[in-house]
């Protein structure tokens, strides 16, 4: 009959279309992958990923944690983790991640000069991301945190399609323009079937060190409202604090160098 004919045609079409898509394969030795994304640039994604990873490590002393910097164009992890230099190669020709504060790190920043731009079109970026994911000797990791670049493009698609991801954390500042992009980020993860663990509201409020007056420089509570609309949890609310920037710039993440600070 015609309906079973239609159904057969639909199935055939779906099979043909999915032939070009990569198969999801887990990274050897890595139990769970969490990605930190934002949509918008400049909201503090890398800082959050960096601090999150270290906090994970501190809280669960027996767990092995890794940090992958997937921001090919603007790799920040080397500076934040105070790591430099080209990775060594193992006898199996895999790159050995650089370690600091107990975290195994890999970044494009270790493979290129500090001033060299990565002027690549999407296709080459996909190949680089693949190398950073699979041609690294991660060892046995309980968690791998991936710091994603801003946007909803090639890198995000490549990572989501190639490896199974336990969940995504989306970072945003309270401004509307950042929230609009965070929303797009959440939708993208929905399209590629990655569960969104929750939102982080960053740069929420600034307290003047002199008079203690609080200013919501980038607005207030925008992220909470978005979380409510999307039915997501707020994983945290991080204020603007000079300590965070100072310690990032010097490569001594704030949770290690100043654990008592507000941040």
């Amino acid at each position, binding site marked *: 009959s015609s309906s079973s004919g239609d159904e057969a045609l639909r199935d055939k079409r779906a099979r043909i279309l999915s032939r070009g898509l990569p198969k999801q394969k887990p990274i050897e030795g890595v139990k769970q992958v969490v990605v930190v994304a934002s*949509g*918008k*640039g*400049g909201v503090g994604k*890398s800082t959050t990923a960096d601090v999150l990873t270290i906090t994970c490590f501190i809280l669960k002393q027996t767990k092995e944690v890794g940090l992958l910097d997937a921001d*090919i*164009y*603007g790799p*920040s992890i080397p*500076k*934040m983790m105070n790591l430099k230099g080209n990775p060594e190669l193992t006898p199996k020709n895999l790159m050995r991640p650089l370690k600091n504060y107990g975290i195994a790190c890999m970044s494009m920043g270790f493979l290129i000069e*500090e*001033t*060299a*731009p*990565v*002027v*690549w*079109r*999407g*296709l080459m*970026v996909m190949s680089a991301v693949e190398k950073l994911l699979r041609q690294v000797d991660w060892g046995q990791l309980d968690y791998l945190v991936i710091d994603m*670049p*801003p*946007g*909803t*493009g*090639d890198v*995000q*698609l490549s990572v989501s399609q190639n490896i199974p991801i336990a969940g995504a954390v989306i970072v945003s500042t309270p*401004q*509307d*323009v950042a929230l*609009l*992009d965070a*929303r*797009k*980020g959440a*939708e*993208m993860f929905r*399209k*590629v079937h990655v569960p969104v663990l929750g939102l982080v509201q960053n740069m929420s409020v*600034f307290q*003047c*060190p*002199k*008079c203690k*007056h609080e*200013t*919501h*420089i*980038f*607005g207030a509570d925008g992220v909470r409202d978005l979380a409510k609309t999307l039915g997501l949890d707020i994983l945290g609310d991080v204020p*603007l*604090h*000079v300590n965070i*920037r*100072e310690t*990032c*710039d010097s490569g001594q993440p704030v949770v290690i160098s100043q654990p008592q600070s507000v941040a």
Partner: protein
Amino acid sequence: QVGILDADLCGPSIPHMLRPQERAVLQCARGWLPVPAGHTLPIALMSIGFLLERPDDAVVWRGPRKNALIKQFITDVAWGDLDFLLVDTPPGTSDEHISTVEALRPHQPLGAILVTTPQAVSVGDVRRELTFCRKAGLRVLGIVENMSGFVCPHCSECTNIFSKGGGEELAKHAGVPFLGRIPLDPQLSQSLEEGRDFIQEFPKSSAFPALTHIAQQILDTSQGSS
């Protein structure tokens, strides 16, 4: 007459910031008509934000599709006679940037303004951007240090939340003009959020003098070139 081309396809912010009354992109014989910014200002806008069915639809595209649209924004939009076309690019040095530079090459762009925040991680990325401009043969008009300092509205104490001077250092080191420092300005940010008449409110904000100074330098440079 100024045009603004929003080349950030994944995170278009221009439609939200300028909030034109009519968002529809109409067609004419010469191509797409840019959207007027409104408020009787001679500013024309083009952004993927106007082409989406819903403003929060995600654009999850790979490179080739993005390249095609950016080329269209430059060649198939009936911009008309413009004194300036400003292109707002996303972060990075990827498809959007390569396509923008390539598509603009026959039109001999005046140059690029690089914006950084003062801290080391941002300056690090902008150094790469500088090298990109050099390789692409794009003149660097100068560097702007944004979010440089916050003056507490209560006690007027200035705190350098994101550090200070990184942009200026970079400009000196790279031998390009330092266009200026813009402070963190909650008033500016708020008026953009609340959809207040940004054009009316803006002159009273603390960022206004800095931005005016930067604009003046660009105007002077363009006079010098013509």
